[in-house]
Each structure stands twice: as structure tokens, then as C-alpha cells.
């Protein structure tokens, strides 16, 4: 039995972030450590479905983070710096720059 996969999805474009978060949840459900990171873009307040998806993801030891402080304030994403993200990526088995930038 191989060890659990660790996957980090990253989103830089607002049109892709919400679905990308859903995609991260889909992987967590499949027994992987799944993380999503929002870069560059400031997202509007999430709807109830997205809030619930993030809560479920966190319950499964995953997380949604952001390098943009406004996302952490408005949508309670976990703050991370670009340097910290780089270090986190080194631990991942799969790295997914999601969508376009």
C-alpha cells in the first residue's frame, strides 16, 4: 500500500477558483491530502456551498489558503506567503497549477 498522495492545486484566475476548490474537495474524498491556494486574485465572499466545501475539506485535514490578505479576511482562507507556498510544494506528490492565470 503506497502512502497517501499529497496534492496542491493553485488558482490565479477568479473564473477557476471556485471550481478548483470543489476539485480539491473531490480529491480529499478520495483519501488524499488536498490543498488549494489562491494567488494574485481577490475573490468575492463565498456562497454557502463553497463555505461548506472548505469546512469539509478542513475536516479531512486539507485546507484552502491564500497569498492575498483580502481573501483571508473576507473568506477566512489560511494565510500563506509565496515563499512558504514554495516550501509546501516541495512536500507534495502532485502539483496542479489550475486553469489560466
Amino acid at each position: 500500500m503506497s502512502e497517501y498522495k499529497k496534492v496542491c492545486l493553485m488558482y490565479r484566475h477568479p473564473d477557476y477558483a471556485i471550481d478548483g476548490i470543489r476539485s480539491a474537495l473531490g480529491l480529499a474524498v478520495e483519501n488524499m491530502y488536498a490543498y488549494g491556494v489562491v494567488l494574485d486574485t481577490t475573490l468575492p465572499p463565498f456562497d454557502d456551498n463553497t463555505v461548506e466545501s472548505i469546512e469539509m475539506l478542513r475536516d479531512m485535514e486539507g485546507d484552502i489558503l491564500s497569498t492575498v490578505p483580502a481573501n483571508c479576511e473576507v473568506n477566512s482562507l489560511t494565510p500563506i506567503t509565496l515563499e512558504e507556498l514554495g516550501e509546501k510544494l516541495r512536500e507534495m506528490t502532485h502539483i496542479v497549477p489550475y486553469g489560466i492565470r
Partner: protein
Amino acid sequence: MAKSLGIFVTTKESFPHVLGITQAAKNKGVKVKVFFTWIATQLTQHPDFQKLCEIADDVSICVDSYKKQGFDPQVIPPGLTEKKMATQAQHGIIIEDYDCYLSL
């Protein structure tokens, strides 16, 4: 050489690369699985989508994304079957079971 490649497609712009890489990999005897999600499900309307389905070993899409992109889930695009109108679990299969992984 490893024997399988999984491709997770999230962008419309990547289609020529998906087709080119799939063809090159098949020429080398590699098993290829492709999964389309979100905006990339619009690629089911691409003139070469059916060709990709013929070349690759397995092509599936996220049916929920397909619906959100304005398509009728009852209308199955040429090249796919009802079973290939699937869920994000297909992405999980690519990650767990395939030797190499690409996101495009």
C-alpha cells in the same frame, strides 16, 4: 519507461497540447487517460474531440461541470458514452493509478 500517463485538463487553450501529447505517448506504447473538468468540458464541442477519444485509452468528463457550462447532461458528446459522463473521482484515479501526471 513507465507505462501510463494521466492528463487532467482544466483549460480550453490546452487542447492542441492534449492531442499532441496523447498522440506522442500512444506512439510510444503508453496507456493514456484524459479527464476534462470545468471550463475545459466545452472542449467536447471541439472538432477534434472525437479524434482524441479514439486515440486515448480512456476519456471522461465531469458531468457536473458540463451542466454548469450550459450543456444538457442527457446529450452525450460524440466519442463519449454515458459511463464517461463522470465525476471528480476520475481525477483521483489518474493520481492514484497512473505512473505520470500532467495538468493542462
